[in-house]
């Protein structure tokens, strides 16, 4: 039953990724510019027509788009994402270095966001009209409005420059021997900024959902029938969580986009930074690789939220069977 559901979702995910690859390949190729111009970068003033033709020929971008796409897909199915134009090494090798860093930042942030938004949101939602309720509503608007790059710079100024507590860039110290404590120190600031940037929206969402449920007829009916307040709360939370998890699934892709800014300011060597660089420099194989892997991560996280939703919402289970 549930395995069939998962199989179906995975299949759907694969279809999504397939179309994503066609779409991104088309968009990348429709954008102006070519790898030769990108290779020259700041020296673009000295790129002559002959040089441009020679380098593009070497990279094979003088071939038609469809031909290149078919070749890319065929290689991709074999697990080969090609060779990065700029770095001259395998895209899979580059991704292997970057993915753990991005996941480290992402997972730590999302866990903290979940914890804080649930605690704050539930507390505010169950105490409608209280000072706490108003405080959370206000706070979430403030957090949501703070530009994350500004907050990041402010953190660096306070905690690195003024106080000297935390390192301001990278994901480990130069010697690379600090171990877990060193990594944690490097994580604190970027994760804090990620959490502050997102926790407001999630807390507010759960807060509103809890209020909505609390005021619905079934709750009033249950309460008037003398249902225990604890049991009632449990039911409300369960029902409020379903749309919350849904919301989570929808907003997770935005996370990967938003982390680009954080990664740049903190020089965090993740996927965000490398994909921006790849896009700017027309490094087609690397860019396709980062889009592909981000697509896979997004699809995976959506499947996970679907399964979670399924496990707490019995009415969905009926649809599955």
């Amino acid at each position, binding site marked *: 039953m549930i395995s069939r559901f998962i199989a179906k979702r995975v299949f759907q995910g694969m279809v999504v990724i397939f179309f994503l690859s066609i779409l991104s390949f088309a968009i990348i190729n429709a954008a*102006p*510019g070519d790898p030769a*111009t*990108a*290779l*020259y970068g*700041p*020296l*673009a*003033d*000295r790129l*002559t*027509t*002959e*040089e441009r033709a*020679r380098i593009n020929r*070497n990279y094979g971008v003088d071939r038609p788009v469809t031909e290149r796409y078919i070749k890319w897909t065929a290689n991709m199915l074999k697990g080969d994402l090609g060779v*990065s134009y*700029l*770095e*001259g*090494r395998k895209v899979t090798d*580059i991704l292997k*270095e*970057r993915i*753990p*860093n991005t*996941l*480290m930042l992402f*997972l*730590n942030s*999302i*866990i903290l966001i979940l914890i804080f938004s*649930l605690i704050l949101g539930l507390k505010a939602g169950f105490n409608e009209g209280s000072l706490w309720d108003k405080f959370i509503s206000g706070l979430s608007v403030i957090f949501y409005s703070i530009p994350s790059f500004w907050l990041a*710079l402010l953190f660096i*100024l306070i905690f*690195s*420059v003024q106080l*000297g507590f935390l390192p*301001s*860039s*990278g*994901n*480990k110290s130069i*010697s*690379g*021997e600090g*171990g877990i404590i060193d990594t944690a120190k490097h994580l604190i600031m970027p994760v804090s900024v990620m959490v502050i940037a997102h926790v407001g929206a999630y807390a507010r969402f759960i807060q509103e959902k809890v209020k909505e449920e609390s005021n619905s007829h079934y709750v009033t009916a249950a309460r008037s029938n003398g249902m225990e307040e604890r049991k009632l709360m*449990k039911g409300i*939370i369960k029902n409020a*969580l379903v749309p919350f998890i849904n919301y989570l699934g929808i907003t997770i892709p935005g996370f990967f986009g938003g982390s680009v800014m954080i990664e*740049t300011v903190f*020089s*965090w*060597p*993740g996927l965000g*930074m490398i994909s921006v660089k790849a896009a700017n420099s*027309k490094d087609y194989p690397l860019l396709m690789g980062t889009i592909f892997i981000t697509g896979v991560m997004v699809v995976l996280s959506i499947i996970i939220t679907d399964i*979670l939703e399924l496990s*707490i919402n019995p009415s969905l289970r009926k649809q599955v069977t």
Partner: protein
Amino acid sequence: MKKIASILLTFLFVASAMFTGCGKQQTAATNADANKGKTLVYGAESEDEKLNPILTPAYANALIFRGLMRFDENNTTKPDIAESYTVSDDKLTYDFKLKKGVKFHDDKELKAEDVVFTIKSILDEKVNSEIKPEFEQVKDVQAVNDYEVKVALKKPFPPLLDKLTIGIVPKHCFDGKDINTADFNQKPIGAGPFKFVKWDKGNNITLNKFKDFYGKTGNIDTFVFKFIPDYNVRAMQLQTGEIDLALLEPSQVAKLDKSDKVKVNKIPTADYRGIMYNFKTKDIFKDVNVRKALSYATDKKGIVDGILLGYGEVAYSPIQLNKYNNPDVEKYEYNLDKANALLDAAGWKKGNDGIREKDGKKLTFSLFARNNDEVRVKIAEYVAAQGKKVGFDIKVDARDPKAMKIKDTEAFVVGWGSPFDADDNTYSIFQSSQINSGSGYNFGSYIDAKVDESLEKARTTSDENERKQYYAEFQKELAENPAFSMDVYLTALYGVNKRVSGYNDKRVLGHHGEGFIWNAEEWNIQ
């Protein structure tokens, strides 16, 4: 509910531990030496993609690799791996004798075949080398014996010695490998003062002192390139001491100047900005008065003070910071009256809209600036505003440079410079033979017989005084018949921790302040 939350959290923790765990294992293989001895950390603006002088210039190349020749503090070439060299009378053959006993970092001796391999690889069609056009004049290169190399040229080419500062790579590292994708590009081996230790992708590159280096060295044991793309963060890390050296933006200088830890060095560069006219796409530029008027109408001092915040110099010649500079040329000091008078005299009459026209042609053109270079965009906007005062209608077109071919633009905010031999970036830009030549940069199709002649003569003479004379003539003629409206030279701003000594703050730098760490092996740290 609790159950679900705990399942969720456990899952995420496990996943987190799994993935990040792999990350740690990969990076555990680090070098213990990095902590020992004196370490200098350079906050680099961007991360290099590969370290191989054949393929591309890179920050760290200057320290890992050495070439036959090397620039000294005056930007003139001196033999480096070459012990001496001779030039044939027809200036077509260069004969280099190599130093004996020069070692690569893998302990193998550097021999003539490595030099031949390096140059031949650059010229190889299949190799994606960015510097191939610079070696276009090389006809052949051969090893006479293990310690002697002959380079034959197609035409006399004095900047060859400049070009041969290119780092020599060991041939034996590329046996049967594709240079474009070789492992070497990520783990380079050269004969320079620092050897490659590790490249922690996205974070830093670590180099250690090479004990068998043949030259003079200071006390730096470890040189680290730390990649910090954000310039605000670079300035902050200079203050915290996390990094010792970084390129700064003009807006940061005032604050850092007050710091007792950091010295801000203001270093001249041969990197100029100006407006390139395209004679092929726009007829109005054929009238020299139009070009002169625009030069007079541009307040260059205003650009230095307003756009560069004072960190620059008014430009009048493309080789102004070169030893062959001729200051005795028309400098086009800001003068709106002169600009108006020139245009009036040439028959450009102001229309109702304030735009001048002549024979039904409006005094209008579009000015392209790369949108990823703030200074260029501001200069374009400024020139457009100034031009309007004397009846020009200049449309600023700030766009992604990748979406544009310079040859197709009507006018272009250009950036060139000749920090080294005066022929470099003059002949290829202003000589008319370079309009359609594969390696030429005369994108504006500028033609002037006198300029052609003096550049050609300067290129084929080796007598210093004669060359100076030819370049003086070239500058005079270029000022009279401008190919560019010269605006400003940029000043590079380097913040350096006060514990570092021995660096050179006088040497004229290249594009984007390139070249500051040229003699880093001789620096000392307290």
